[in-house]
Each structure stands twice: as C-alpha cells, then as structure tokens.
C-alpha cells in the first residue's frame, strides 16, 4: 500500500470506542480489512487557490495537509479533517477538476465515508477514471473531477469535498462541503 495518513490533529483516541464494541465502527472495518494508518506532519502557509463551488456555512480551522512538491499524480494521501476521526483523501488527479486547487486545478480532497451507509472508501482510488470507489458495501462510485458526484450507485449525496487552499508549496484544508456520514451537523464535533 502506497498511501499514508497525515494526522492533522494529534488528539486523544476516539472516546466512542465503548459504543464501537456494540456496533462495528468504520475504523474496525478498516482495520479488519487490513488498511494501514500511519502518522506524519507537514506545514507552511502560502497563497490562496481554492475554488469552492458553493459558499460554506460553517467555519473551520485552516490546517496544512500536504505540499505541492510532495504530491504525486495518482498517489492519494490520507488525512483527517476537520476532526480527528473524519478520514479524507488528498489526490492530484492529473486533469482539471471542479473545486480543484493548484496550478492545474487538479488537486482535490474528499471525505472517505460513503454517504450511502457509511462504507469505507479508503484505498479505493481509481486513477484511470479519477474515481473513488466502488464502496465495498453497495458499490457506489464517485467522480472526483465533478465535486464528488455519484457516477453510479446508491449514495443520496455527493462525497463531501474538503475545500483546499494552496499557499506557495503548501496545501491547506479550510472547509467541508456537505455532510459527513454519521453527522447531523458538521459544526457538532464528535465528543
């Protein structure tokens, strides 16, 4: 596996593990599936290059999640944002994308929980089609060049898109478009 997870927040472990014992969590599913979770850290501010499709309703912290020089086309990088247990993927698609950042407007980031029933999309990036999926639960695929739109499948929302800013070489996450599975409001952080 070539992916790595960049932990943007170094916080205590998820206190919801108690509940996880009764109901399989996405994290457990991932671990059971053999996905790897690693930690790393980067950070430097720069110029603004975000092109969000829609106005944001909530404000989020600006967090550095990667750099242009380190990001390779077709090699996704995992990061968590805006909360420690919200898993996302940063990817340079190689083609212009809706909401894309960077000089070629081809850098995008999306949440990796399927907004159908919360299935894990981690590790499912398909570079040939710039798509995420299929979700292992019900096979939904998402078009990362078109704001995370469903290509085929059952999700009743597009994949939540992480709004990016590029300043110099640095890539920042600055917001979330959409509602992450399991949330009723993006402003209500998990305990």
């Amino acid at each position, binding site marked *: 596996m070539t992916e790595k997870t960049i932990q943007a927040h170094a916080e205590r472990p*998820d206190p*919801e593990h108690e*509940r*996880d014992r009764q*109901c*399989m*969590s*996405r994290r457990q*599913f991932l671990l059971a599936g053999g996905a790897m979770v690693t930690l790393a850290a980067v950070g430097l501010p720069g110029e603004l290059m975000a092109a969000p*499709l829609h106005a*944001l*309703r909530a404000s989020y912290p600006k967090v550095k999640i990667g750099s242009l020089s380190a990001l390779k086309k077709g090699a996704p990088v995992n990061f968590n944002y805006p909360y420690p*247990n919200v898993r996302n993927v940063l990817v340079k698609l190689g083609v*212009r*994308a*809706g909401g894309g950042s960077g000089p070629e407007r081809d850098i995008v980031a999306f949440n990796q*929980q399927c907004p*159908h*029933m*919360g*299935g*894990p999309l981690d590790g499912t990036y398909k570079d040939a*089609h710039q*798509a995420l*999926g*299929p979700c292992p*639960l*019900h*096979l939904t*695929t998402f*078009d990362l*060049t*078109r*704001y995370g*739109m*469903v*290509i*085929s*499948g*059952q*999700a*009743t*929302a*597009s994949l*939540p*898109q992480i709004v990016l800013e590029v300043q110099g070489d640095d890539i920042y996450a600055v917001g*979330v*478009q*959409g*509602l*992450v*599975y*399991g*949330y*009723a*409001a*993006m*402003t*209500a952080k*998990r305990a």
Partner: protein
Amino acid sequence: MSKSERFIPADRIPLPPRDAEVLTTACDYCTIACGYKVYRWPVGREGGMAASQNALKTDFPHPNMMTAWISPTQHNIVTHRGKPHHVVIVPDKDTKVVNVGGDHSIRGGTLGQKCYNPDTPTRERLLHPMIRVNGKLTRVSWDLATEAMADISKYVLTQHGEHSWAVKMYSYQYFENTYAITKLAMTSIGTPSVAPHDKCAATNDATGMDDAGIDSFSSCYEDWRLADVGFLSGVDPYETKTTLFTQWMMPGDAKLIFVTPHKTVGVAWAEANNRGMWLPINVGTDTVLHLALARIIIENGWQDQEFIDRWIAKPWEVDSGYGRGTRNTGWQWRTTWGAWQSDWEDYRKFIVAQEESKLEVAAQITGIPAEKIRLAAEWLAKPVNGQRPKASFMCEKGNYWSNNYMNTASFAALGLICGSGNRPGRMISRGGGHQRGWMGAGGGSGWLSPEKYPGRRKKDFNLDRWLMVGEIKFAWVFGTTWVAAMMASDALGARMRELTNGSPHQITSLDRAAIFQTLKRRVDSGGMVMVDSDIYPCEPVGTEFADFVLPAATWGEDDLTRCNSERRLRLYSRFYDPPGEARPDWWAVMKFADKMGFTVDGSYSWKTSNDVFEEAARFGRGGVLNYEPLVQMAKSRGLKGHELLRSLGTTGIQTPIRVKEGKLVGTQRLHDPANDWGEMEGSEVHGHFLHSFNTFTGKAILLKTPWKFPGWIQFFDAVKPRTEKDELWVTNGRVNETWQSAFDDRRKPYLHQRWPDNFILIHPNDAKKRGIESGDWVEIVNDTVYVQTGQPQGVLDADLNFNNLLKEGHIKTTAGKFRAVAIVSDEMKEGITQSNFNTPKSMANAVVSAVPDPVTNNYRYKLGRGTLTKVGESEYKTDLSRMSLKPRHIV
C-alpha cells in the same frame, strides 16, 4: 437554471425530536419497494444530538456504518393540516424484510426531495384543474372541468360509440386508483380502448411464461439467497432492483449469469469477484441462447428428470382445457394450431433438431463465445458430487421487450428442464419493473376489441394503432408519458398533435356550452379531445395537446396500497397535504362519474381511499393479489381495511392472503406444493396456482420456439442495422440513478445534476469511426421506422406477419431521431449503443418501429437502430458541476 435547481450540498440536517410522529410507507419507485419510515414534526423545533434527545435514539455524530443517519436529501418541509412540518423520510432500519437493516437505493433514498415544497423545483406541481383556452392553460374549477369533459364524452359515446372513448393509464399507481379508473372505463363506459403505460394493448408482459403456467411474480426475494446460481436474462438487478441485488444476491456465494449487451455495475462486480459471468448477447437473440443451453443440458443428460416426470404436462394434459380442448389454452388463442405446444419427449426432439441450437451456430447468432455458453450450461445444470445446482431464473425487459413471445417461452422451458419453477431457491420469474398496483374492476371489456388473430380468435386492442387511424375521439391519460414511452415516438406525437391542437376547433372561452360546441366540431371533423391527469406538466400530452389538465395527488398525499414484486402488500401512508387542489385519481374519476350520471345507483360513493380499497377487494379474490381476507378480518374486528394493514407496518403481508386457524397468512412463493393446505377457511377462493402451476392440470407446459418463426424473423430482418447505411443498434434501458421518465428526478437537484440530459453509451471503436468523444452531442437518426397502421384482423396464418402487412399496405414508413450526450465506454458491446428508454425531451423510442409482436401485441421495444453523427460539444465537456461522463463499470 435558477439557484434552487442547482444542487447545493447541505452540511446539517434537523433531527426529529423524541415526540416526532412516525408513519410507515414503502418506496414509490421500483418494484422491490423498500420499507420507509416518515418522521414528522412541526417546524419550530428540532431534536438534540444526544440519543435521549432525538427520535432516532442515536447519538450524533457517530462512527457506526449501516446505522441511523439522515442524508440532507432525506429531509423536507411540507404542509400537514395546513401547517408547516419537517419530514424526514428514511429507510426503515428495523425492518426484517425487503431492505433488511435499512438498505436503500439512490432513488428511494431521495424520496424526501419528492415532496411538494414551493421552495424547491417541486413548485412545478400541477395545483389546479385547467382548460386550454386560446392555447393557454387556464385555471378552472373541478366542477367546470369535469362537466365539460362529461358533456363531450356523452356526445362521443352517443355519436361515435364507446370504442372512440379511450384511456391510457398507469398499471401500477395503487389499487385505489387503478380500480377506480378501470371501473369507469371498462364497466361504466364499457370501452375496450384501454392500454397501460408500458404497452400499446392490455396484453400480457412475459407472455411465454404465462403460457407455460408460471406466474411472473411467483418467487420471493429469499429465493435469490437460496439459489446456487442465478440466470439473469436481460436485466442487471443492481441497476433496476437495487436492494434485491444488494440484500439478496450480493451476500453469499451464488453464481450469477448476466445476459445483456451492457456490462453494468452488477455484471462488472460479479465478474471481478469470481461470482459471475457476462454473456454479451446480440440484441434480440436470447431465444437462440436458450435453445443452445437447453441442447447442451439435454445432450449431457443434466436435465432434472424427476422434476420433469412429475411436473411437465404430458400430451393429453397439454391438450386439456376447461372441457373445451386446446381451444382455450393461451398459445392457441394467440397463434396457430400446434405451432408451439410440446411435451418432454417432443421438446427434446425439437431441441436437438434445431440448426440454431448447435453451439457454433448459436455462438455466431448471439455473438457470445461458444465456451461461455457451454460454461453457463454447466453452472445451471451440471450436477456436482451428485447434487444438482439450485438454479433460479429471472427475466426482464432486455429479454421480453426484444422478442416477447419466443424469448419468454424459451426462457421458461430452459428453467423448467433445470427443475425450477416451484421450489425454494429454484424459481422462474420476472424481476419486475413497477410495483403491482393493478386491481381491475372486473368484467373487462376486451371482448369488444375489433382485433382478431387468424382464425378469428380474440386479440387485445392496440390503442396506438387506433389513434394512428384516427378512431379515438376522447382520450384520458393518467400519469404516463404516452408519446416517449411508446414506439415510433415521433410519428405518434405528430399524429397526436394533428388530432388535437392541429385542429381548427380550439376552446376560446370558459363558457360550458361554448366549450361543448367547439369540441363537438373537433370530434366530428376527425379530431380528438385529450385529458391529462398528472402530478407535473407531462410533455407533450399535458403541455401541448390536452384540452383538460387535472392535478393529481400522489404518494404521501393519500393513504394508498399495492404489492411489490414478491406480492408484499403494504399501506403507503398519507403524511402531508396534497398541493393546491390536487386530488387522487380515484377522486377525479368519482367526480367525473357523477357528472356522467353513473352515480345514480349509488356507485362511486367513496368518502376515502379506504372505501375504494374495500370495494376493490372482491375483484382480486381469485388472483395472486388477493387481499380480501384482510378486509373481511378488518370488518369482523370493526376496523377499516387500511387500518388493519397499517398495523402491519413495513412488513405488510404477502398476497394471496389466506386464513389459517383464524389468522391471516401470507404466501411466500406461488406454485409451491407446500402451499397445499387442503380445506379452505373463511372467504378464501381456492386457486390451484398456489400449489401447482397455473395451467388446467397444474403441470407446466414446455413450449417450442423455432427461431425462423415468420412472425418474428421477418420483422427482425427488417429492423436490423443496415451496414450500407453505417447504422448501429440503438437499444434502450435504464440507469440506476433515474426512475422512469425522471418526472421526480428532474425536480430533485441532487439527481438532476447527475443526469441533466439523455445519454448514449457507445463502444470506443464505434465512437472512433464516427469521430465521437464523451461529452459530444450526438444525433441518432433512423430513416426507416415502421408503423403498423391497419389490418387488425388476420384470416390466414401469415396475415399478421411483417412481410404480409408490408405487402398489403398496412405498414407505414416513417422516420425518427433524437439527440443525446455521448458516453464512450467499453461497457457496451461493439455494434450496440444504449440510451435512456424514456426521456421526454430526447425520445430513444423514436428510432424503434411500432409493429407489435403478432403473437402477443407487445412491441419489440429494444430493437432500435440508427446512424450516429456528432453535432457539437455539450456543455458537460467543460461544466464540471453536472453530468459525470465516467464509465459505469468501475470495480
């Protein structure tokens, strides 16, 4: 596009408070009908994030997949008893049937966006009855609309006869409505001019299965989990019957054989996971595949001989019919004497004698590699360690909408020799399209049809042909896109326009007498009056042709009932007020019936939809949708039928309902000998189809299907793509994300951005030759679209075959074209393109001929052809906010 039409992802949803009301319903869309819960509470407050503070009893946010969550598209604000209310419409996570655990499709998952809310595109709902005055639809009262309709109807019936008074209607939109409409049309008016939404005639669907004695909806969803192998003919249930696939097929290790020219998601998934096989078939050639599979099975002795000896009709049993010999068997009514009927020995001889059943010949005709056909036969029937595989067979429109009679008859025979048809995990059935919502009012009027098979045997009435020859004077359309849904759509639409707003006699005032005089002149000069009952302006019947447009109330706006494709009956609860003056169609029928004077004997005195439900019950008593015992049970307890059904929630009960030891008992599957309980209880009407096949003897009938049957092969040869014109097959189908004509989806911003326009899927080699890329606008033209315009009656055997119709001048040659956005992908087989089957502004059926199967009066819907020409670049090449152009088979 206004701001509200644009999809704007929300980042919060209101949670239902603990005291929110909860009502049950089922999905309005596909045949599977997942169970849903509606949470309703007044605007002004919301539930809290803690489990103790919301009706889902769940802490938010939570990390648990496949549990309670509300997507933003599942919330809306509606009016209930005149006051604004929140509604959240979510799959029932507590259900143990259908969508176990709260699974759902993208269609049902967005039901919340269907509800009328003037702040959303649903503001386009029809709100008031309207009459077209000087070309403009003008608001009128229900009284004036129905009085004016009755005035001209009475004149038409007196002057032109009941045949000229027509109904084109949905077959599925709830028992209460279909019962009321058929009571009006067939009983009170007594016209044979009635056709359902999907056919030109009130004829059979999977006709060959019916004649074999197999009910199209005999199986239950569990059969797909119990089967070792599934043969899926002309269907990928993932695309069209989502939770049947994701809940009942994906789990386990059953192998799946997909017969379709389109490698859809389910096909690609099954292949990638060693669970399936794709048989990429040439359009219309399924019969040959079935013959070849049967031959391999028979030559290897893999047939289920024990089952055949017990359950396949012997020669004498084939000939027996209600004391009248063969005359009353289905295929004899439809065809010539002796052409199809068979028994095991005769069928076996027939199979091995066919040139087309030879593996190499079949591979050439079907375009499927011989080794794949052989392997499919092994999967279906070759015993492993002395055990026969349990095989179930499903067909849908790729099968029965390309060669209606022969594909279904040969499909049924293939299943039967594998020992399937009446046992758990071994069933033969349709997958289903719409839910089962037809409750005919009994009696019927088909005997008045002027159409006859050779030998003057009764034949169903072809409403499209009747319209083309100008015999319809008054047509009432209920909730269907008549033009786009039927074949040769351009020619049909042009004729409809000529008969309605092409007439010089147009309504110019709202004076009742003046309206009558105008419409009288219209019908007497060869024109036609149209009424369109719908929830939205329907193109083009409602928007251009209809003189009367009536606003219908729909799902969620009245208590309604119907069954799904495993015959599961449930109450679809009313949970909000219909918009404006919209009323359910049963009410509109009642209003019109009153103006016609049909209520003088006390008929049509319904107060609520429950009154219709209870009245309709007795007309379904002998059939597979029998729910009368439930109504009787309710009455004995002093309850309304609807209320007893409501108490069964999303579980409902499978029809036919029976009574055992005083309790209501549903029927899981039909034809199963385990259903034989001996004595009946209560008001049950015994039907032997419950525990044996649906033939006189209870034994299934093997039918022969010679590929060169002239009623088929002449037409097939005439409509194939012509190489000299560089044509391709232009077939049509569905995509998962769109329900039917997208009447709701185009008003759901989330779904509309996915499919804002019609598509055409093209293989890369076919695209390259024509200089077409994904995102290009493509014009598809067929300059030879055949339309049958006459000859309803056959005398000699060959009279209704294509070549004879052509020779005798009963085939009109028209042209058809449509425009769609290209998606270039190798998910399509080379030489075959596919477009959405029913997009009113881009009618793929325009390039399909309107010449029905002479055996069944059913169109060959899938056999379109045309040239493909790039005519420009669509906005979707550059607008990245709409219409993904990615292939569908990414796994």
